[in-house]
């Protein structure tokens, strides 16, 4: 017994090192699976405080661009107003619908909330964005995040006042996308090389596609409404060994200057997922 204690005392430094090392590796590999590590919620509040302080200064440098983006988005929305369209039919009248559910069975499927970006990284292999809006303000796990120009990512962790978003520029991010012109569905991923490009895979070679084509979110995504812009085709990579094209896209969102984003909640996501799970287990 005495020898054991002596042994532990002698190699205590090494044992401590191994323990600490094991602890950090557990954190690391657990986090990639569940995106929830020890103290992450508490730490989010702490780092979020620092990020907000820094962001207060940084915001001023991007004000002009933010304003332009907002004005453009307003323009698009203004053009979609019903009052812009003339209807020759005398029986039609303009109704503004504010009730989320009516007797005809119209449901609100997507609910949008705005959020301020307080931290954003682009230079790493796994990039994350921090939003100053959390659980108390209605943000939940697995919501889509969209900027004024295109998609940004998905919420993977929330604390009381902050939310962490897995950016599209993340090794594990994957978005179901389609070509706007023809409707072919593929997957958009990031290979970690440069923050100015993302890749779209699984596009069959039968599709006629040209540079500059628009890629939008597909109808199969849980997170985003369909038709939100992802990017435009920059280059078509023709791999002779496969039946699929790989498209290099220029992301529609400018990840270098994110200021305000919108968080989309799909109110029917849980129902859809549950039904699909049930169908799988029944087989």
């Amino acid at each position, binding site marked *: 017994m005495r020898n054991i204690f002596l042994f532990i005392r002698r190699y205590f430094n090494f044992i401590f090192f191994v323990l600490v090392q094991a602890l950090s590796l557990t954190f690391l590999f657990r986090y990639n699976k569940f995106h929830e590590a020890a103290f992450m919620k508490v730490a989010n509040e702490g780092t979020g405080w620092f990020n907000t302080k820094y962001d207060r200064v940084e915001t001023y440098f991007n004000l002009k661009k933010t304003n332009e983006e907002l004005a453009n988005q307003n323009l698009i929305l203004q053009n979609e107003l019903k009052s812009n369209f003339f209807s020759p039919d005398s029986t039609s009248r303009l109704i503004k619908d504010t009730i989320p559910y009516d007797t005809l069975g119209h449901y609100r499927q997507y609910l949008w909330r705005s959020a301020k970006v307080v931290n954003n990284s682009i230079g790493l292999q796994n990039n*994350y964005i921090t939003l100053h809006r959390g659980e108390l303000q209605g943000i939940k796990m697995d919501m889509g995040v969209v900027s004024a120009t295109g998609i940004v990512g998905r919420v993977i962790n929330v604390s009381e006042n902050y939310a962490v978003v897995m950016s599209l520029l993340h090794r594990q991010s994957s978005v179901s996308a389609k070509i706007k012109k023809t409707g072919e569905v593929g997957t958009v991923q990031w290979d970690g*090389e440069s923050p100015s490009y993302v890749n779209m895979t699984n596009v069959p070679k039968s599709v006629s596609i040209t540079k500059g084509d628009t890629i939008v979110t597909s109808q199969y995504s849980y997170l985003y409404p369909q038709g939100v812009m992802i990017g435009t085709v920059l280059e078509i990579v023709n791999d002779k060994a496969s039946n699929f094209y790989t498209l290099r896209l220029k992301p529609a969102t400018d990840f270098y200057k994110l200021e305000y984003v919108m968080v989309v909640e799909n109110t029917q996501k849980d129902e859809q997922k549950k039904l699909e799970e049930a169908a799988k287990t029944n087989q």
Partner: protein
Amino acid sequence: MSDLLKNIIRFTLFILIQVFVLFQVKPLHQFIVPYLYFLYILWLPFNTPRLALTFTGFVFGLTLDYFTKTPGLHAAACTLIAYVRPFLVSVLISQEGADQNYRSPSVTSMGLAPYATYVVILTLLHHTYLVFLEWMQFGSFWYFMGKVLGTTGVSLLLILVTEILFYRKQRFKTNTA
């Protein structure tokens, strides 16, 4: 200023500079990430107990991890270099008893060549381990080699600039003082 207070201030400064200055630099290439923060561990005083050194490394790395949302990644690399540090110091120190006569590792206390070796080995070790952990999750062998070399080069350059800009004056400690 006491050593403890000085190191607490350094701790905060290194983290803030890494997060809000170096990580905000626009990426040049995927192999190049400007890392400087681990210099804090290289600058810790000689007389830090080994246990405290390892523990400081862990806490320091984890603090950065919570900013980058990769808990454990930098913590693992920092504990490794904090653990290896005392061995390297005892091998590389040239003057007899320099680790008792001076406060912390620097060019004046260790001499130029031993200090440079000390910095290069620990930087390389830190980046190799860091990129290795990343490589286990994704990437190819060339990604691993390229990123280790690229990042080490940039880090050494940054350390050189920091050492010149913030020259640490070190007095010879004597028993009479």
